[in-house]
């Protein structure tokens, strides 16, 4: 069942229309159409190699992942031809599966520069002076249970998997994007950390009305996140989309079964 979505109608959120993605000459995503209203939480599920992460990379503008067909828009702006930094300024955020370590780049200084970058042209985001900002940054760290010491360290350097994921959330709190793409939030993370991360995501989403598109292949995440919509991908195509009922079926039967039963 293909839904033809007109960009005009849902211009406020994220709209993908017939998106195909190529990496290293191989097509890994075929003709994906989906849309997300502002403030909604969507989960994108599927087995390994189904193209979920590739899709997210392409949405963010990774040079190796090319969108060969279709369009992507956020808040009415077409993103498809823009470089990653411009997409970020239009309100898109990507929480990496493996956040990169940047040696010598002090976390506190980096967060401050993000604050300055993203508060420039936005009337709703007031620019804080260094003292105000640092106080705020410490609150963010506290909210995700990250030790304040990390602020003095190089960005992500020597952080554990869970700590890196939490640092992605801290950056998200500083930037306050319109839409956050979260890639495999559960990989490398123990159960307690996962619960805490999911709880934080929900709080952020409610507080700042951030749209969330979360990629995972772990059905347990569904119960922690309670998404508005779920999409299932397999072999690069979108197989099924649904709401709470689909979520219940997946939790009960696992998504493989749900997909194959179609």
């Amino acid at each position, binding site marked *: 069942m293909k839904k033809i979505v007109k960009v005009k109608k849902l211009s406020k959120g994220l709209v993908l229309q017939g998106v195909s993605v190529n990496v290293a000459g191989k097509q890994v995503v075929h003709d994906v159409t989906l849309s997300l209203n502002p403030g909604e939480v969507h989960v994108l599920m599927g087995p390994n190699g189904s193209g979920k992460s590739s899709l997210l990379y392409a949405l*963010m*503008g*990774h*040079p*190796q992942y090319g969108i060969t067909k279709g369009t992507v828009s956020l808040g009415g702006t077409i993103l498809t031809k823009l*470089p*990653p*930094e411009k*997409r*970020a*300024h239009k309100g898109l*955020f*990507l929480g*990496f599966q493996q*956040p*990169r370590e*940047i*040696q*010598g*780049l002090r976390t506190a200084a*980096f967060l401050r*520069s*993000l604050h300055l*970058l*993203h508060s420039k042209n936005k009337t709703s985001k007031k620019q804080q002076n260094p003292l105000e900002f640092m106080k705020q940054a410490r609150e963010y760290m506290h909210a995700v249970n990250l030790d304040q010491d990390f602020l003095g360290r*190089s960005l992500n350097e020597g952080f554990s998997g869970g700590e890196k994921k939490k640092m992605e959330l801290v*950056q998200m709190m500083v*930037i306050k994007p319109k839409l956050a793409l979260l890639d495999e939030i559960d990989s490398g993370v123990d159960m307690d950390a996962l619960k805490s991360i999911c709880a934080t995501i929900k709080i952020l989403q409610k507080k700042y009305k951030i749209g969330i598109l979360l990629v995972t292949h772990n059905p347990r995440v569904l119960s922690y996140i309670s998404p508005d919509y779920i999409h299932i991908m397999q072999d690069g195509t979108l197989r099924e989309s649904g709401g709470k009922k689909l979520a219940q079926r997946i939790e009960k039967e696992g998504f493989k079964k749900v997909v194959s039963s179609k």
Partner: protein
Amino acid sequence: MDTKKIKKTASAVKSGSYKLGFRTDVTPIFAANFGLSRKVIEEISKRKQEPLWMLEFRLKAYEIFLQKPMPSWGADLSTIDFDAIQYYVQPDAQNSRQWKDVPQKIKDTFEKLGIPKAERKFLAGAGSQFDSEVIYHSLKKTLEGKGIIFESMDDGLKKHPEIVKKYFSTVIPSTDNKFAALNSAVWSGGTFIYVPKGVHVELPLQAYFRINTAAMGQFERTLIIADEESSVHYVEGCSAPTYSKDSLHAAVVEIIVHKNARVQYTTIQNWSSNVYNLVTKRAVAYRDAEMFWLDCNLGSKITMKYPCIILREEGARGEVQSLAFASAGQHQDAGAKVIHAAPHTSSKIQSRSLSKDGGRSTYRGLVRVLPQAHHVSVNVVCDALLLDEKSRSDTYPTMNIQNSDVVISHEATVSKIGEEELFYLQSRGLTQHEALNAIVNGFATPIIKQLPMEYAVELNKLLTLELTS
């Protein structure tokens, strides 16, 4: 001189044709002032009014220089013509260029680094000195009260001959290498520092305070002595581009660190692209003493420099931190040498190099542990970052370990700018240039953060500027 001659000389000075301040009836060879000979050396020593022992030392070194072959390794020195060099220049000699002829890029760099206007002309080779003399002299008064000596090498020899004679050339003999021999024969300028027992020099002593054409010569000789229990930090150079009309710089730096004393010697070198910078630097550390070389090489066409530490007695510690940046047409051949000549000694070498636009950076290191040196620990880490496909990095680490009761570690990495790292930062809203800047400055940070703050800030700015060009 009669009135006619005075008037003639005066107009010559005014017109700019008066070069060296010599009388007009001087012998042709010396008037032309190119090339080296015994006569040139004798004249140098005579004009400086040096004691006989120094003249004899120079002449002996000259003989050694003539006999020594050029090094068979390292950078390409084949274009050096010893006969085309002026070995002695009067302190008030004409400067080489006009401000209007200074390249715009250099002027822009001064502007962006915030270099005070008074200093720019001097750094660009268009002025003979700037008014730091006042700072220097008031600093000297404070230091003298504590018995600290901070002079030019020439003045040090005149005012404190006993100390100089005791230590001069005890760390680096004239026979060490061809360029040390050359320096020993024709040295002029440089710094002499003596810190008495138990005295700690709180603020870094900076060569910049006494800077003028005489102090910043091609054959500087520096001698630093830290007596027992004392400490001092000496800083030379600056990150702003510094013009030298002389293409051969062969400096010698000797440091003696007595029992329980500490010396840090920081260098930030950004010579103009015509310079061959061939430096011999060595320190001796005695019982429980600590020597720290912090060496940043940004400029010159070719630099060959391997700060060395001899850990002569038990408990001595040595550290060399080196940052090299090689851009188009540059070869930074730098590194470190540590010799463990006593037990219970430790050393650490950290080298970081950046190469871009076809620049070449080389790490050349030597660690020697002599048979008598047991309970020794050595840690060597060299990391190279290549900013593009054209650039080059080489590593030549040598370890000569003659005692088995030691802990030695050596790690080396070569990397290029990670695409994933760039994308990660860009996904946060940084432009590709800003992302590259964060990565490059981050790479240099472990070394830069050890510089005095003003130098660190300037160096960060300079790296950022280099990336845009």
